[in-house]
């Protein structure tokens, strides 16, 4: 008789939440059919199998190799009471500070995108007051000291009636890099607007929505054909050379075949410093999906986006697109140097064995460990672009025959970033604790991971769904993290 075998390889147990009721459930991580799956079962809503990654080796490498000592926020915002993810704030059990802090200055938007995780739209005219926004900025500074990246977001932040006063308020604070997350409509349509934005340089970046070259895909993602807006906004930003990142919301079957084309386009734009790909998070307007959000049809994982980038563009090889150690599950990054129109993938310059095999390669390790440290340094997203160049210079100085590259600036960097936000389907407590993109709560008292904010904390969710879950849970008396005594600033 042949032995009874599982149809998969068992890798780990996990704590997840049910995608229907958001209660914590037991889960396991398994490898099957060339992919990483989460199997979980809710007492009330049954069993689910969720695709976590379509690349087992990349997934394992991110979890096992790209491990780094977590950096903490200066002050925790909330105590540990109900257990993760019901205490977000940042609480003392969180394992990463905020690499990027979002300040949502308004819920209003001049678009009403079917994919919006924030459910913004023209019907929501509640702009936050300047006083409230200042309190939110203060929280960012209190948590981070000198926040690496603060992103003014929304809604559409540029339609806030006091937008430039908000920018001034941000600039008065010790923020290393200020980003404006925008659909580009105001930049495209209002003469002089981009010129005013440019006055906030250096350390300013436009985070420009740019999903597709096709009207049909834009209609699906944005509810409008934004091509003319893209064109005019980029024309203006190029003319002024305002540092810009193209942000691509990627949805399976809609625009996931255009990633290579977008990278090629980005390379030709003077102002563009990189492209950020964000697969849609199952949050917000899920009812806008035909027949509801469909796991198989609509979800796209980080490794699937990475695979498409590699298939559709020849700029980067697999060894160039690496996990970012601060949140290795959710963020992947590749750098290239832009020199006289030539693009040199930076990560391709070092022996990939050093990165991947690390300590195992005993001969090279001694010699190369300094290089490895530099690279980890470089790959931390908490480096704002100003210090990125410094880290890159240090890194290149450690390389042989690179002396001529010592005079680099941010304009020489081209960066591909893949950011996958965790949703209720893919929720893995191990990973959620490393979330490093935080949304500052409008109460000005908390910074909540992007991932859990959209699941449990946005708008009324905290008072309805989350309140109900909290009522069921026994609050812990131990106010602190599991393993250490830490001061909590409530």
């Amino acid at each position, binding site marked *: 008789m042949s032995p009874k075998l599982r149809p998969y390889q068992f890798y780990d147990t996990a704590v997840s939440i049910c995608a229907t009721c958001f209660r914590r459930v037991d889960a396991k991580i398994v490898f099957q059919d060339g992919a990483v799956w989460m199997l979980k079962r809710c007492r009330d809503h049954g069993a689910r199998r969720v695709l976590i990654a379509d690349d087992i*080796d990349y997934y394992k490498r991110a979890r096992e190799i790209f491990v780094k000592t977590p950096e903490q926020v200066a002050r925790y915002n909330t105590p540990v009471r109900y257990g993760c993810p019901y205490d977000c704030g940042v609480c003392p059990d969180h394992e990463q500070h905020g690499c990027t802090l979002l300040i949502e200055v308004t819920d209003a938007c001049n678009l009403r995108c079917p994919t919006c995780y924030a459910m913004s739209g023209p019907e929501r005219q509640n702009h936050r007051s300047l006083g409230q926004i200042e309190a939110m900025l203060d929280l960012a500074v209190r948590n981070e000291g000198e926040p690496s990246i603060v992103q003014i977001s929304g809604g559409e932040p540029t339609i806030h009636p006091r937008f430039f006063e908000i920018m001034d308020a941000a600039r008065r604070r010790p923020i290393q890099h200020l980003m404006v997350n925008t659909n580009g409509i105001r930049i495209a349509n209002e003469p002089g607007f981009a010129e005013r934005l440019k006055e906030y340089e250096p350390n300013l970046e436009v985070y420009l929505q740019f999903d597709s070259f096709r009207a049909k895909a834009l209609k699906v993602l944005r509810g409008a054909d934004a091509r003319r807006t893209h064109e005019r906004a980029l024309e203006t930003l190029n003319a002024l050379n305002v540092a810009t990142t193209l942000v691509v919301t990627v949805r399976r079957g809609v625009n996931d075949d255009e990633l290579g084309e977008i990278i090629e386009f980005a390379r030709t734009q003077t102002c563009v410093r990189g492209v950020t790909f964000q697969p849609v998070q199952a949050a917000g307007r899920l009812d806008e999906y035909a027949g509801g959000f469909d796991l198989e049809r609509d979800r796209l994982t980080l490794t699937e986006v990475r695979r498409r980038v590699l298939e559709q563009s*020849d700029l980067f090889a*697999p060894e160039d697109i690496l996990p970012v150690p601060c949140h290795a599950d959710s963020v992947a990054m590749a750098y290239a140097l832009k020199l006289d129109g030539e693009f040199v993938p930076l990560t391709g310059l070092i022996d990939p064995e050093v990165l991947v095999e690390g300590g195992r390669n005993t001969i090279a390790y001694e010699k190369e460990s300094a290089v490895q440290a530099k690279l980890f340094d470089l790959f931390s997203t908490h480096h704002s672009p100003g210090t990125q160049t410094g880290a890159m210079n240090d890194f290149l100085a450690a390389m042989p025959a690179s002396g001529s590259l010592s005079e680099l600036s941010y304009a020489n960097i081209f960066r591909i970033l893949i950011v996958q936000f965790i949703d209720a389907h893919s929720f893995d407590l191990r990973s959620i604790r490393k979330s490093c993109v935080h949304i500052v709560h409008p109460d000005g008292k908390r910074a909540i991971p992007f991932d859990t904010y959209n699941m449990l904390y946005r708008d009324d969710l905290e008072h309805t769904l989350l309140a109900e879950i909290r009522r069921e849970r026994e609050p812990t008396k131990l106010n602190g993290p599991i393993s250490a005594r830490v001061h909590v600033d409530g």
Partner: protein
Amino acid sequence: MDNRVKSCCAGFYELPIVAELLGNELHPGGSVLTRKLAGAALVGRDSVVLDVACGCGESARLLATHFGCRTVGVDYSKDKIARAITLAEEASLSERVGFVHGDAERLPFDAGSFDVVICECSLCTFPNLAVALEEMHRVLRPGGRLGISDVVLNEAVPATLQDVFGRALCISGALSIDGYRDELVSAGFSAIRCLDVSSALSDMVAKIERRAGMIGNLLDREQIELPEGVCVSRSRIAEAQRFVKARGVGYALISGRKPRDG
């Protein structure tokens, strides 16, 4: 002549004594490097992969289980193909893994049949490498990827290694990195990338050295006689290892893409 070398070479690996010398690792780097090669060639769950010179199908089975793809193996040895089919059945992989007897220089497949073609540690043993690469190019779909792992020759092979043994260890027919690159370009590939993984080769020779030492000691003799006039001795293996360590020879992963409009 060419057919004689091909069958001799394929037959060489079927010898129990050779299997004993190599252990389960029929090419440098073993399954770790196979996975890396498949990664470089972007093998995914939806891929249909051809493994040229697949042997008994170790890699084909690994790719099917680890990458979830469908794999077809082709090999010049009918016995190997028969064995590969049996092993795939035993592993309950017959639905995803298939094997066909055939010649790398005349692949028995229609043009554009595969997303990925891999060829591990075998290209340089083919008498006509250029024709084999053209065949791999033909059976790939436009935009499909090629992944080669093979011995890289940086210096001329010493005279004492210039025999069938050298060929069987894939040393004599190997090219330099630039040589492979040129061959891939001539066959119509673009986006060519090379990854130096030479440590896999010296690890493998060290392993053979240990195993040969064990076999030699067990049988109380200095050298192991193989058919075709090949003999393995400690001094010959040591000579091969010196050549590897001096970087006269190395190992590399080479990948390329068939143009998307081709």
